């Protein structure tokens, strides 16, 4: 059983992805499918309020979203990250990558 659901809300030129469950090596392809279909937007908001666990493959998917934002010129915002997952993302330097790519962190 796959343990990740991604709910997409598309309004004007903003996409919100609500990520629920486990973003790891077994589920990352589901998240990647939503990232790969992104076209012609100004803003991507990824809401991690219901994210239970992330592994390195999951972090790699967020990295891909960040690099895509550079390539396709949209703003990316990460929200709802709880303290344990925030600590993991901070340790690997993901926020620094986001800052360097976009010049801002939300």
């Amino acid at each position, binding site marked *: 059983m796959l343990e990740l659901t991604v709910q997409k809300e598309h309004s004007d030129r903003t996409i919100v992805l609500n990520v629920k469950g486990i973003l790891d*090596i077994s589920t990352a392809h589901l998240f990647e499918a939503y990232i790969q279909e992104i076209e012609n937007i100004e803003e991507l908001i990824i809401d991690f309020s219901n994210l239970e666990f992330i592994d390195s493959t999951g972090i*790699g998917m967020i*990295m891909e979203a960040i690099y895509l934002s550079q390539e396709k010129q949209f703003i990316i915002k990460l929200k709802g990250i709880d303290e344990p997952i925030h600590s993991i993302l*901070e340790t*690997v*330097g993901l926020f620094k990558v986001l800052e360097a790519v976009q010049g801002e962190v939300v």
Partner: protein
Amino acid sequence: MYVNEYRRICELTSSNDHSIDERLEREIKLARNIQAKLLNGFPRINGAEIQGISIPARLIGGDYYDFYRLENGNIRMVIGDVMGKGIPAAMLMILTRGAFRSASESTTSPAETLAAMSKALYQDLRSLKSFVTLFCADWNPITNVLTYASAGHNMPLFVNGKEKKIVDPPKASGVMIGAFSNQVYEEKSVKLEENNMIFFYTDGIVEAENKNREQFKHERLINILLEHSHKSVDAIKKYVVEAIHRFTEGVPPKDDITMVILKIHQESNTISFIHSKE
């Protein structure tokens, strides 16, 4: 006639699949042996002990540790975690090992080593949409100063064996290898004393899960390290591995489990390298 021909083709395909499976299994076992050999050399140090172990979640893994004796007599050590698992991660682990050994030849500090590795590995890792986290440290056996830098990897645990407590040395932080080609890393250092123990590890240890999906967590790890800090690093390594096995109750590991333990016994030390027979 057509039915017989179809059956024959099916039989041939099935027999072929079987031989491919067997060949793959053989090759994976060989790859596992190669990886185990590459993770098996430890420096032998008078007055200090160093040991490590890596247990892959699958047949082969993406965790990595290594040691390198520098010309000035210091020991450079590295521990790391390649994104992903299994064969793809193992291939990148070998790439990382080569970059570490090459960078260690030409750099004079952990921060410089990580910067050189970042430069060397950037293009490959970006094109493969992957990254590696690394913690690199130079230990001076004469002064007992440990100098270290991190490329997105967690800090090790510093155990004061005399006072039986965990101490917090200056935190080194930095971006993972594979994000940028020209990355500069900050460097910190700490003076080690007799009975100090440094426990370098990957997140597979603290994130190991049991049947109720509870994680092993830092608290359990710290309790084991404090309880057994007076014992040999080999014994401590076994206690940690056994505790994880007991805790997970047979639940297959999600991630590789890797640790390197350095324990200081006296103020001044001399070094030689050995290959463990484990």
